[in-house]
């Protein structure tokens, strides 16, 4: 009996519809969170830009300042990688792209150096923990990136750097281009390459008073600069994560729609075939009766 086939199709369509509702909801949630993440990124810009501007001016004035965070080391024994991934999956290739870039950067480093991972986000931590490479982890930080977390990570790497446990530190994160495009990126954090003023033409020369001195201000600024760099990378990565999730869930919703369409079509075929069969049966039976009755 063909009715069982139709019922089976109905069951499957219902199940796909449920999945579609979930992916649709996830897409909308990701879109809302993306907006919030972009707003926080926007809000952090005045701080970052002023910090960079002042730092660039200070390094120009106090060019002879030596500070361990500014010095390039001759012997590099161990390189640290801060890997910023999401805590959760279902965001397309976002996490695996960042992890892949990290692994690729490590393998392409031809120097004879050790490396350690500072994992920010659970997905990256899980991957590198299996390889036994995680030095420190910062997970379950939530959807709202806080500066306090970034500062703590900054403090960790500055300590490790000053104790010569690490000789170079990079951060790997998802650079946010737009909601549809995120580019995994590696940026050097330590030693600090101070920002330079070259792109921006100095409008006019301003003689600043430095209190207590340019050198001392510079020294207090450097750790802050690292904190703000990490904070920005985390913010961008968060926005990228939501962008990626939005796209992934959008695609999933679309695919579910296609499956539903094709299942509905097949179901109608089966039902139609069943009806045709029944009509043929009835017609056949009636004919037989007619013949028999003659």
């Amino acid at each position, binding site marked *: 009996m063909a009715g069982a086939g139709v019922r089976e199709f109905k069951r499957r369509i219902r199940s796909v519809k449920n999945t579609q509702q979930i992916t649709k909801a996830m897409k909308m949630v990701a879109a809302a969170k993306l907006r919030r993440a972009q707003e926080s990124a926007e809000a952090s810009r005045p701080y970052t830009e002023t910090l960079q501007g002042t730092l660039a001016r200070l390094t120009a004035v106090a060019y002879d300042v030596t500070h361990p965070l500014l010095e390039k080391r001759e012997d590099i024994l161990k390189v640290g990688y801060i890997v910023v991934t999401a805590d959760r999956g279902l965001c397309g290739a976002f996490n695996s792209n960042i992890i892949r870039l990290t692994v690729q950067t490590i393998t392409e480093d031809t120097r004879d150096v050790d490396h350690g991972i500072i994992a920010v986000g659970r997905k990256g931590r899980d991957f590198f923990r299996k390889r036994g490479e995680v030095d420190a982890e910062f997970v379950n930080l939530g959807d709202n990136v806080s500066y306090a977390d970034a500062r703590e990570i900054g403090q960790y790497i500055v300590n490790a750097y000053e104790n010569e446990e690490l000789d170079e530190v990079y951060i790997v994160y998802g650079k946010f281009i737009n909601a549809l495009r995120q580019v995994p990126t590696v940026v050097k954090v330590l030693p600090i390459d101070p920002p330079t003023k070259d792109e921006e033409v100095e409008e006019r020369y301003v003689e*600043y*008073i430095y*209190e207590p001195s340019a050198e001392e201000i510079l020294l207090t600024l450097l750790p802050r600069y690292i904190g703000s760099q990490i904070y920005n990378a985390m913010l961008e990565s968060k926005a990228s994560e939501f962008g990626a999730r939005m796209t992934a869930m959008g695609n999933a919703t679309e695919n579910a729609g296609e499956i539903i369409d094709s299942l509905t079509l097949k179901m109608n075929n089966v039902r139609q075939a069943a009806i045709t069969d029944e009509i043929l049966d009835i017609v056949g039976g009636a004919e037989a009766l007619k013949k028999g009755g003659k």
Partner: protein
Amino acid sequence: MADNTFMLEIVTPEQIVFKDEVQFVVVPAVDGELGVLVNHAALVTALTIGVLRYREPSGAEKKMAVSGGFMEVVDNVARVLAETSERGSEIDILRAKDSARRARERLTQRNENINYARAQLSLNRAIARLKAAGEKLD
């Protein structure tokens, strides 16, 4: 813009906390308090944990707790970059008192697991918050 006011901006990594015209501002610089009036020369100064005071064009004085950072003054714009900053009126006094007490306790204990520098900073922050909120210190 009135003649005797200038722009004060207080910026933290997470937001712009304050942006308005003021008559003057006193910031906790590393070598003691430092006041800025209109038409100040270009200046960059490092700040410590403490209380920032400013006077609104109406003459009212307000206080804020700031934790470290620096201030840049140029062209009648004073921009304070601090890691955290709270308005005196928005400070949770009980919480600040609590953290001051905790930090004091830690400082009096002898224990090598305690990071004294960190406890001291935490105490300084709590005191600054209490002062900004206009609380008396015990």
